[in-house]
Each structure stands twice: as C-alpha cells, then as structure tokens.
C-alpha cells in the first residue's frame, strides 16, 4: 500500500500539494505511489525560482529508468523555492517523496484552486487502493 497522507491535496496525475508554514506557499512533489510506479529516479528537471505557472502547466520533468514523465503544476502560482538537493541526489524522491524529495515551493495565486484537487480518500480511490 502506498503512503497517502490525509492532510495533503492530490492530482490525478500523481502530484501532491502540502501546506507550508507560510499560508500563501505550498510544497509540491509526486506521490509515494508515483515514485513506486516510476522506479529509480535518475534526474529531476525543475524550473527556476520566479517562474510562473498556470494550473496544470508542465513545470518540469522527472526521469526514471528509460522514461521521462512530465510534472504538472496542481495550482497556479510563482516558484519561490526549488529543491536543489535533487540535483545531487534524485533518489530522495524515492526515499522520501513527501519530505526531502519535495520539488518546488509555490506562492499560489488563487487559494480556491486547492478545493479543486483530490482529497486523500479521492486519490486512494483513483489509484485503486
């Protein structure tokens, strides 16, 4: 069974959104289920701080063995921080997707968009767990 923390929001494309201490900033990464499906992550291509994305824009790519997958921005906003540690150790996405394997922190444009995302229960149903 994959880990699906109750307090996060999710997309059908397997990204999660986690609140940070700053109420206007969220942390984004991929779910435990997604990292498990991908296998060993060998590279994560992330945006620069300051880049802006609309909801469901591609904000980066992740490469596991043989496959590159696009990463989708669950909510609109501006990147305020990028997880530089993934450049040196992309396997953090496999080891700790909700913690050290986070990808970007985003200042969100419209908090109401969070309500359009999946709950943990919705996501569990989506992946058949």
């Amino acid at each position: 069974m994959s880990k699906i923390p109750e307090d996060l929001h999710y997309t059908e494309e397997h990204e999660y959104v986690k609140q940070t201490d700053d109420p206007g900033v969220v942390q984004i990464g991929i779910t435990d289920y997604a990292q498990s499906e991908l296998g060993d992550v060998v590279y994560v291509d992330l945006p620069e701080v300051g880049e802006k994305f609309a909801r469901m824009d591609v904000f980066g790519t992740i490469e596991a063995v043989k496959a590159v997958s696009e990463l989708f921005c669950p909510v609109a906003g501006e990147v305020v921080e990028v997880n530089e540690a993934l450049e040196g150790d992309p396997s953090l996405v496999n080891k700790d997707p909700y913690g050290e394997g986070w990808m970007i922190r985003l200042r969100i444009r419209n908090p109401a968009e969070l309500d359009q995302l999946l709950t943990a229960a919705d996501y569990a149903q989506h992946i058949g767990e």
Partner: protein
Amino acid sequence: MALDQQLLEEVESRGDGVAYLRLYRWSPACLSLGRNERASARYDRHRIEKLRLPVVRRPTGGRAVWHDREVTYAVAAPLAAFGSLGESYRAIHFRLLCALRRLGVPATLSSGPPRGARLDIGPCFSAAVGGEIVVNGNKLVGSAQVRARRAFLQHGSILLEGDQSVVLSVTRAFQSAVNTTGLAQTLGRNVAFEEVMEAVLETWARPGEEIETMDSPRVDPGALAFFSDPAWTWRR
C-alpha cells in the same frame, strides 16, 4: 525526433483513442542522446564534430544510441491504451517480440526489474533492465519513453546489426563491453528493413484494433528547429 514529438502532441490533443505506430530509418546515421544525459561531460563533442557525426537529443529518457543499421519504431498512444510505464513498456515490446518471432528470432523478454540503471553508466544498449527484448542475454531492441498528461511516446531501435561501438568511441570515460546483438548476427543472414517492417505490421494489431497505413505527415518547422538547435542537443 521532431516527427515523433509531433505525433505525441497530436495524440495528446486529439483524445479520441487514435494511436500512431511509425517505422523509419536514419539517413545519415546519427547519434541520439537521452533527454537528460550529461552529454557535455560524457561525450567528446570536439571528436564528434571532427568525425562529422550528426547528433540529436531525444525527448525521451535513457542513454546514447548510434542509429545506423536498424529499424526504428515509435509508438505515440493515449496513456489509457497501454497502462502504466512498466505495463506499456512491456506491452509494446511484446508486440515487437511477436514480429521478431515470426522472423525466426529466438528472442525473449528479460525478466529483471526495471530498476538500478543510472544515466552515467554507458550506452543505452549496454544493459538490459527488465522487459527488454534480448537474445541469449544480449539486447536486440533498446527503447525509451516520455509520458505527458494523456499520451506517451515510446520509441526505440530494432538492431539489424548490433554495433554500438561508435558510442564508445566518443565517450570520454572507460566503458564496459556492450552486450548487444542484431538480427544479422542472430539469424546468420542480412535482414532488410522492409522485412522487419512487414513482420511488425502483420503482427501488431490486437482484436478490436484496426491499422490504417499512411505516409509520414509533414514535419512542423518549429519542432524541426527545436531539435536541430545545439542549445537543445548540448543542453547538459
């Protein structure tokens, strides 16, 4: 590369269940780099340019491939048609396996798990990582994928001759031996592109699927410019 990417984008935007299978060959022969390979550090660009080797960077993952005597395939399909990454990788290889068996090739799908490979360990063909088409443990087909929101592209090389020595000749660091094979070595005779193409087309469709053949569409100039740009080819 531009056309493969174009087919992916078309399937992504259509959303009507149509998928594309493209079979092609390279003229001239060409070195392709994996999307995220650290090519500038790994390969001797000066030597590549001195040898006048054409180079392109793929939109898909994996490592460098020398495309010469091969049948290249590309599948652009809705995600829903072939399932997860692992499922789609194996399903497409299984269809190719059926074609190779028809040609008399004693190929099998390798059973190793698709884990453990790294971007810095050598040519794309140097190791079978699971779900690969192999003959006596040597890779006959090398493939890579890119997955978008609703569609994916998987393309790869069915080697007519299993020679990837060009990749090693332009690689800076020492590389271990490359365990590849080609149809010529496997069958003990020369195998033509057309022979493989016909076998793939004859065995590809599954019940309920229809194949309609078509000529290659016109390549979008923007996509062509993107994949021709050294800034993309040598981005890392």
